[in-house]
Every structure is written in structure tokens, then in C-alpha cells.
């Protein structure tokens, strides 16, 4: 999942979270999780003054953002002292899979 400014939203992206008026989760969502964005929908969200949306995967490359390889290297470093322990090794695998998924891999 990635949180992006509405300006960078494109038709075909999939909402990873409900969208609420005023960006705070009160009342009924304007638009539900799992909705596929269309140009018309993006225009409507813009008219309702929505600033950001959360979308599935990792479709937008942000300046200064770390690549999957860099993230994985950091993960390796953090687990350097504990990965030989079975429970930690399991947690390492969970995080690695999570990173791969969230980076759209």
C-alpha cells in the first residue's frame, strides 16, 4: 500500500483504504476500499477536496525513496545479530515477504 497525493493518482489504480470527507475516518466513506480509480472518479474526489489516497502496491516513485534492494539490505542489517534464532528468522521472512509485496513485487 502507498499513500499518494491525489494529483498523482491515475485511472486503474486500486484504493487500499476507504476515502473519507476531510481525510478523517468519520461518517460514511465517500469511496470504498478495493475501488478501481477512473478519471471521472479522480475528478470527483478532487472536487470534494480530497488531498491524498491510499492505493494498492507501490505505483509512484517518490524522490529520495529507497529501492527494494536498499530496504532489504537494511532489514538484513537489523536482523544481523538475531537471525540465527528460529523465531527471529521466521519474523525476518515475514518482513521480507511484506516488503516485496508492498513494493509491488
Amino acid at each position, binding site marked *: *500500500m502507498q*499513500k499518494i497525493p491525489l494529483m498523482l493518482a491515475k485511472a486503474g489504480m486500486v484504493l487500499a483504504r476507504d476515502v473519507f470527507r476531510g481525510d478523517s475516518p*468519520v461518517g460514511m466513506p465517500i469511496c470504498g476500499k478495493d475501488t478501481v480509480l477512473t478519471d471521472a472518479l479522480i475528478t470527483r474526489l478532487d472536487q470534494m477536496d480530497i488531498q491524498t489516497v*491510499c492505493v494498492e502496491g507501490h505505483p509512484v516513485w517518490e524522490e529520495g525513496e529507497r529501492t527494494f534492494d536498499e530496504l532489504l539490505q*537494511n*532489514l538484513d*542489517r*537489523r*536482523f*544481523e*545479530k*538475531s537471525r540465527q*534464532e528460529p*523465531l*527471529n528468522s*521466521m*519474523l*525476518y521472512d*515475514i*518482513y521480507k*515477504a*511484506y516488503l516485496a509485496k*508492498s513494493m509491488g513485487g
Partner: protein
Amino acid sequence: MEDKRSELKKIIMDTRTLPTLPNVISKLNALSDNDKASVQEMARIVSSDQVLSARILRLANSPSYGFYRVSTISNAMILLGVNVVKSLALSSSIFAIMEKNSVGLWEHSLGVGVAANLLARKLGLPECEEIATAALLHDIGKVIVSLKCSEAAKEILGLTNERQIYTMEAEREVIGTDHAEIGGWLAKSWFLPDKLSEPIAFHHDVDKSLNHRIKTSVVHIADVLIKASDFGNSGDRYVPVIQKIAWDTLKLNVQIMTELVAEIEDKLIEVRNFSLEMMSE
């Protein structure tokens, strides 16, 4: 070394030498926990301090609790309980004293609060708010070390970098005790109940937690998860070893952990924004 430890204990247990906590706190501590009259009295006392009530309400609505919309102090008392509000008052005062360079520790604490709450709810445990509060406060001993022994704090940091050891190990070497034990002393001197002080004192030694081992286990696992996630900065760059006793106590398994990691990461996006707002106040 034992001298150093008891000297430190004396300094810390002496509340007069602690950073000046607002007057309200001592008034709060004087009130008993359960009787109805004192709950109202407590709400009145807290509400009389505008800045403090604002901070408590912000914390009560933080993603660490995040399931309520709390708008008044008396509501917070009802929803979160008197103990939680009392320790929120204490922690908001302590966190307010933390310098800007402790932003990393503040974020780590918030993150562990969120992770502990999600885990506790997932397992259907009672007293999730207490667990989240203990988690929010779990590293409060580190704040005290840097406030009270800033030289030693520098030495500890230097040692962890130089020898690539855990903060705990460096602390024991330099000050003869560690932030968990110090946090436990502090919690005692604040008269916090055992269900809060035990997880604070034993989050790195779950086996020593005898009366509230489930809560301590949750805080321990949450601390590991937030370090694995690289959220905030606890001072440790290495993920600690997951203590088998905590894992077994909570009957964890791969599936629970996989779901939990995704839930935590999802929630942390909000926490980062919240933390920025809170710090800019």
C-alpha cells in the same frame, strides 16, 4: 558498580529531583483509584489544567488507542479508565520534557503502543488500553537516563556503536542497571499499578514478570516488531531476540504474525503523521 546502581536508584526514586511535573500530577496521585467521587474530582483537577488536558486528549485519540473519539477528560476516564488517564498525564508531562532530539524515541514509543494494542486486540486480551499505555511508557527509563545522567547516556550510545552491542548491555556496563529496571523504579515512585509497572520493568526479561506475564509478553513482542519495522529510533539498531517464553505465553504462530505485520505497517502511516503534529505543538 552496585554503588552506582543504588545511587542512581536513590536519585530516581526521589521524585523531588525529577523534572518538575505539573502540580496536577501530585494531586492526582493523592486520589484513590476506584471510588466514584474521586473519579469526578480527578476529571475536575485535570480539566483545570488546559495544556495538560489538551495533551491528554491528543494522546487518548492517538493511533495507539485510535478506536475512540475522546473529546472530554471525563469521557477519557470512562472509556480508558482512571489508571490509563493518570499515566497518560504522567507520560505526556515526561514526553513534553523530552528534547527535540528524542523525537526518535517518542516515535518508537508510539509505534510500540500501536503494535501492542493491535496484538492485544487480535488475541482478544482484556485491558487493551492498559497494555497500550504500558507499551507507550515502556522505554520511559531511557528518557530518565538521558535527563539525569547525560554523560552516561553519551557513553552508552558510544559503546553500542563501537562494539555493536544492544543498549541494555551497554547500560549495564556503564550504569550498573538498565532502562527497564529504571522505568520500573519510576513507575513505582509514581504509584502506577503493577499491571503497568511490570511490563515496563521486564519488557526485556519476560521470565521475570510473574503477575502480568501476558501484558509483559505483548509489550516485548511489540518492541521487537517496531524495531524490525525500523519505525522511530529506540537507540538500538539491532532487532532483539524474541523471547521464547513470550511467544509461548501468547501462543503466537506464523499466521498471526504475518497478519499482524501487515496491520501494523498499515497503521504506522497514520502514526507518522500524528507524531509530526504532536511534535509541532
